[in-house]
């Protein structure tokens, strides 16, 4: 599955570019979100097993747990990604609230003009 990894790294690069080079706070926040989505894609692709099934135990599979476990896709990266998505939702909510406050206090969303601390 080379395509997954290539797309994941492209998303990470795009997100990083947005955080570093954009001139609008909201675009930087969106870049942060794209960056973390790329990492999540990378993590999930790590657990892939060719020709595997979903790691959900349903009725008819209980009799053959060993075979099922060797055929199922690895569920640990999925748990890691779930946790990471929740953490990033919190960071996103906090960043957007701070952006609203910045707009009210400074009147602008350009990072180069938010420099009251440097004087």
């Amino acid at each position, binding site marked *: 599955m080379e395509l997954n990894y290539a797309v994941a790294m492209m998303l990470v690069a795009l997100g990083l570019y947005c955080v570093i080079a954009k001139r609008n706070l909201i675009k930087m926040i969106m870049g942060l979100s794209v960056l973390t989505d790329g990492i999540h894609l990378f993590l999930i692709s790590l657990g892939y097993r060719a020709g595997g099934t979903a790691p959900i*135990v*349903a009725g008819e599979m209980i009799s053959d747990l060993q075979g099922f476990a060797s055929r199922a896709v690895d569920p640990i990266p999925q748990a890691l990604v779930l946790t990471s998505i929740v953490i990033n939702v919190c960071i996103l909510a906090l960043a957007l*609230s701070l952006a609203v406050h910045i707009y009210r206090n400074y009147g602008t969303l350009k990072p180069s003009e938010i420099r009251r601390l440097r004087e």
Partner: protein
Amino acid sequence: MSGMSIIPKTIARLLFPFVAFFGAYIVVHGHLSPGGGFPGGVVIASAFLMMAIAYGLSGLKRESALVRAEALETAGGVAIVLLSLLGISLGLNFLQNVLPTGFLGELFSGGILPFLYLGVGLKVTAGILLVLLSMLFAFGGEE
């Protein structure tokens, strides 16, 4: 923030129980199928948000709504921690299973896991509602 016209109001009122029930289904079956506390909590919170957008916030008083959401979130969080500490009171380690684990794949199985997910679902619902309500109240009348 005023509400919308009569069509969204009716549809929101009709759909609310279904969406909330679907969210509760995801939360309760967290140990059997994908989902669990986090996505289930978000779905239930979005059911409430749908009602808030359709009907407008003028009927809600800011103080009481935020206080109730905070209290629910505290209850969810404390429930999770107390359940995890339950094992310690019986002499085992933290987060150990102390309730009967039934047969694999049935609803009442998995020890304390379903109850942990109920606590997580409650906390996530209240938390996301708190975040969204605070943001909506802060705009104070803008759409």
